[in-house]
């Protein structure tokens, strides 16, 4: 296993989590005018 592939495996879940959190935040920002 190369360092690169270890990094990929190590960061996979966190990256996906950040992506999901970003999408949720974007939806929230878009929905903000409606909520207000």
């Amino acid at each position, binding site marked *: *296993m190369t360092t690169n592939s*270890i990094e990929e495996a*190590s960061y996979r879940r966190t*990256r996906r989590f*950040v992506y999901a959190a*970003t999408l949720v*935040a974007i939806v929230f920002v878009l929905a903000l005018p409606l909520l207000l």
Partner: protein
Amino acid sequence: MWVVYIFLFIIYLGYLGIALPAATAAGGVVYAIGLPIAYLRGLGRVLATRPRDLPAPPRWPQPPADGDPALLQYFYGPARADAEHAVRVAYRSCQELWEMGGDLISDSFEADDATWFTWPLGVGGAIGLAVGSLAGGLIVGVLAVIHLLVVAIFAILVRVLGTALRVVDTAMLRVKNVKMVCPHCYERVPYPAYDCPSATCDKRHRDVRPGKYGIVRRRCQCGTPMNTLLLLGSSKMPAFCPHRGCEHSLEHRPGEAPEIVLPFFGATGAGKTRLLYSMVTQLQAWTDKGQLKAEFGDSSTARELDVAGTLMRSGASTIGTSIELPRASVIRLSLKKGTRILQLYDAAGERFYDTDRTEELRYLNKARTFILVIDPLSVEAFWLQLPAGIQEELRPVRSAAPSPDLAYQQTHQQIEAMGVPLKKARLAIVFSRSDLIGTLDGDVTEWARTELGLGNLIRSTMQNFREVRYFRTAAIMESDGSVDSSIAELMRWVMAREGVQLPGGTP
């Protein structure tokens, strides 16, 4: 005929009136929506799907050259690099979108016979591209700011969590009164270094605590996960002294239990090693009876002290202690009320005669209880009082060392010079060879003052130490195989102040 031309011109104007705004609107919508979609797609490619054709990131954080061989925690560099990478990937997607629009616009002016029909679409598309790109760019900017904010919030949370965990771990060690000392170099160990637990990796991590390499866990460069705190079970990994130049193995799993540093000092041949052996044998006896559990803390101690019981039973003399700096004998003591790690330091008597050699015993300033061992036979005043017959009998075992005052004064000065608050320290003065000089009825202090003529030493110890207690011990085994009760009495006194209640009651 001209009527037909006018009619066609009017129709063409109508077409322009519809085609131009329609192309502008279509171009605007496509780019206002297309650019954010391209950005989100780029973000998804970088953060989620990671396709094989994903271009390499323009910049990737490198761990410090003198740092641990571990991967950086995601929010300590890689997250920022990923954000930059996502913008680059998204920009490339946007470029493709722009190139596609540019091609369509230029095609609209080169449609041979149909150019009169397509140029309004090209012009409208160009206007739409410009306006849509502006709007889309603004939306992309907002999306990028949201992403960066999410990363920043997590980065802050991760740092706060890491600091909180460190504080809790340190507080736990304080509450448990765990202060780690290396038995080899005598230095305080702020936190043990650990080897990667993988059988195929020998990388050493000097500081596994939460930080840039991981909060709850870190990952070795070989890919093996490691716990970051004693609180989280890091003590199960092979531990080492973190001090450069030492780096010895700490097999006794430091950090799990409070450590008790117990130095023996006294003149050559005073009986320090024999006392140590008898204490170990007593602990083994209590272990055999199931009253506590004492085990050697490391293989080196096991090698040295495994013979203690046999030697005590045989009654043979111990071999003179090497003049080299001692390595602590480590004993793990498990009791009903918790575990303690005993570090017993037995240095050669010669080390207590001159400043240079005593200075090297840097473990002295880690101790709060000291054991001074004195051979009463070595005290000239006492020796001269003995009948000639007894003198002849005891001459072979008599220590030829200088007066016990010298070793005491030398060590006392050194302990003080090392900054140990003696007013908080305790001293056990142990007169060895009680088995040879007979039992004593009465006060040991008075006996030492009158019979041994150690009034000055006694006065000095009482003035300097918070608590001093005198013992007469016989480091021998009784006929029934038990260690002389004086050893247990001494141990109970020593350990009681460390919060350990040994079998047999309070001294």
